[in-house]
C-alpha cells in the first residue's frame, strides 16, 4: 500500500583514520543506486555514529576503517546500538581488515566485512537483499 521507502544508510568513519577515499566512493555509489546516504565525515566516536543512526532513522550503518582500530571500535559501536535498541539496523564493515578478524566481527553483530577490491555493486546487492529480509 505505502510507497516503498528508499534505503537509508549512514556511511561513517570511526576513530582517527583519515583514509576517506573508499568511504566517499562508496557513499557516491550508494547514492547512484538510489539510496539516501548520510556521510558523517571523519573522526566519529562510537557515540556520535550511533546517535546519527538513531536520529536519521537509517536501515544500514556502513563503517570504514583502514587504521587497524576495528577490533576496538566496531564492538563499541555494535554494543551501543544494542543498548539503544537499534537491533534492525544492518551493520557493515569495510577497509583494511584481515580475514582472521572477520569471524569475531560477525559474532559481535557486523553482518559482513568488505575488504579492498570489492566492487561497489557487490555491497549494494548485499544491502538490498539483507534490508528486505529484516523489513
Amino acid at each position: 500500500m505505502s510507497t516503498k521507502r528508499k534505503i537509508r544508510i549512514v556511511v561513517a568513519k570511526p576513530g582517527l583514520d583519515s583514509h576517506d577515499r573508499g568511504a566517499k566512493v562508496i557513499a557516491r555509489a550508494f547514492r547512484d543506486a538510489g539510496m539516501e546516504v548520510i556521510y558523517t565525515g571523519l573522526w566519529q566516536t562510537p557515540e556520535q555514529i550511533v546517535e546519527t543512526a538513531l536520529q536519521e532513522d537509517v536501515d544500514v550503518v556502513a563503517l570504514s576503517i583502514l587504521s587497524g582500530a576495528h577490533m576496538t571500535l566496531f564492538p563499541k559501536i555494535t554494543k551501543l546500538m544494542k543498548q539503544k535498541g537499534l537491533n534492525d539496523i544492518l551493520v557493515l564493515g569495510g577497509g583494511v581488515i584481515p580475514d582472521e578478524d572477520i569471524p569475531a566481527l560477525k559474532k559481535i553483530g557486523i553482518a559482513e566485512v568488505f575488504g579492498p577490491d570489492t566492487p561497489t555493486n557487490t555491497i549494494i546487492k548485499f544491502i538490498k537483499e539483507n534490508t528486505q529480509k529484516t523489513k
Partner: protein
Amino acid sequence: MVTKSLEAEKQVFDEHKLSEIQKKQKHWKEKTVPEWISRHPERKNSFHTSSSTHIKRLYTPEDIKNIDYTRDLGFPGEPPFTRGLHATMYRGRLWTMRQFSGYGTAQQTNKRFKYLLKEGETGLSIAFDYPTILGLDSDHPLSVGEVGKCGVAVSSLQDIETLFNGIPLDKVTTSMTINGPATMLLAMYIAIGDMQGVPREQLGGTTQNDNLKEFHAQKLCIFPPEPSVKLVTDIVEYCAKHLPKWNPISISGYHIREAGSNAVQELAFTLADGITYVESALERGLKVDQFAPRLSFFFAAHNNFLEEIAKFRAARRLWAKIMKERFKATKPRSLWMRMHIQTSGCTLTATQPINNVIRVAFQSLAAVLGGTQSLHTNSFDEALALPSEEAVRVALRTQQIIAHETGVTDTIDPLAGSYCLETLTNKMEEHAMEYIDKIDSMGGVISGIEKGFFQKEIADSAYKYQKEIENKERTLIGVNEYAVEKDWVPIKLLRIKQQAEKEQVDGLQKLKKKRNNKKANDVLNKLHKAAEHDENLMPTIIEAVKAYATIGEICDVLRNVYGQYKEQIII
C-alpha cells in the same frame, strides 16, 4: 626569412629529412594501418593515460619537431633539469633507499630501524600513528585503539630518545612524515642531536611539513589553513637560519594521488602548494635564494609507466621555470626540484597479493627512469596489513635489483629523446600549467580550499577510477580479470599487539609524574604568548619539548590560539 632559419636551427631534426618522414608516415597511416586493422582490430577504440591524455598509435620525429634541445631538455645538473638534477646521476651516487616505517612503541620501531639499516637501507623514514599526527597524546580518550597502529606512537621527547637509541644522528638522515605537529617533531630531533652532541648544522633530514595537501587529500589537519601555513613557514625560516642541511618541507603530491587524483592533478596541485609556500616565506621577509634550495618534493609512482616517467621529468622542468620566471630565483640550486618517490599504495590489491611485487617493481623502475633522489617501495602485503618484515625485505630488494642488476642506472635519463616520452612530458607540463593558471585565477590555493575545489576534483577522479574498474574499462589483474578461487599469501601478516598501547600509555603517565611540571607549564605559557604575538614558534617549542611537554599539551596551547580545523565534507 631570418626567423625561419632560426627556427630551423633550433630543431633537433633536419627539415628535409622531416618532410620525407611525413610523407612516409602519411602512407603508413592511410595504407598500411587500415589494411592491418581491417583484419586485426585494435583492442580499444582509443587509448588514454590516467589523466585522460590521448595516447597516439605511434609517435615519430614529427611529434617532437618543435623541441629546442638546449631550452627544453638541456644537460643533467643544469637548468631546466629535465634530464636530471645531478651531472652524473646514478653513475655517481644511487638514490637514497628510504623505507617508511613505524609501528607500535618507540622501542619496537627502533628495532625495525636497526634491521632496515643492517639490510642496506640508507636513510630512515618515520611513520607516526594517528594520535601523534593529530596532536593527541597516547592517553587521550580518542586515541584508544589507535596507539601504535598506523605508525609509531610519540607523545614526548622520551619516545624520540627511545626511537633513536643507538642511532647516531650524524650518520643517518631522517625523514619524518609529520605535518600538523611538524614543529614539535623537528624540535625533538634537534633535542636528540643536542644530547648526542651533533651540531645543528650537521642534522640532515626532512620534515614533510606540508599542511596544504592535508586539506586537499590526507585530512590530518589540526588547525585551520592560515595558521597551518604559518607553522610551515616557521620551519622554513628556522631551517634557513639554523639547519642548513634540513629540508624543511616535502611538498607532497603523493597523498593527493592516493586520495584519487590523476597524474596531472597530482603534479599541478603540488606545484600550486609549492608556490603558496614560497609566497608565504617571501612575505615573511626571506629572500628566495635563502630557502628555495632546500624545498623538496614527494610524488607517487602509479601504474601507467610512461605517464609517470613523463610526470617526474615535467615536474623538474616546470618547477625550474616557476622558480626562475615567477620568483626570480638566481641560484641554480633554487631551481632544483629534489624529489622523493613512493610507489602507489592504492594500486595494490588484497587479492593475489604476491602480484603486488610486480606492480611495485614497475612503479619503482618508473621512479628511477624519472630521476628520483629517494625512493620508498611498498610492500606487497600492504592492502592487508602493515608490512611484515619479509615483505619489507622484498620491497627493499626490488630497489637493489633495479640499482645493481638492470643496468638502467649506468647512463643518465636513458629514455630521453623517445618521441613518445618527450611528447608525454610536454603534454604533462602543458596540462599541469593549465590547472595552475586556473588555481591562480581563483585566488590561489587557500581560496581553492575554501571553495572545496581540490576535494571535489580529487573525489571526482577517485569515483571515475573505481567506475572504470567496475565497468572493466580499466583492467586490474586478479580483481576484475584473472581472479582465482583461493589466494596464496606466502607470509604471516604483522599484528600490532594491544600490549603496545598499554606500554605506551603507562610510559607517558609515568613521565607526566616524574618531569618538572612547573617547568613544563611555564614553557607552555610562554608558548601561548609567543603564538598570540605571531612569533616564530620554533625556539619556544624546542624549549617546551626539552622540558618534556607533550605533543598533546603543545597542540592544545596552539588550538587555543588558532582554533581547530573543521572538516569540509565533500563527496
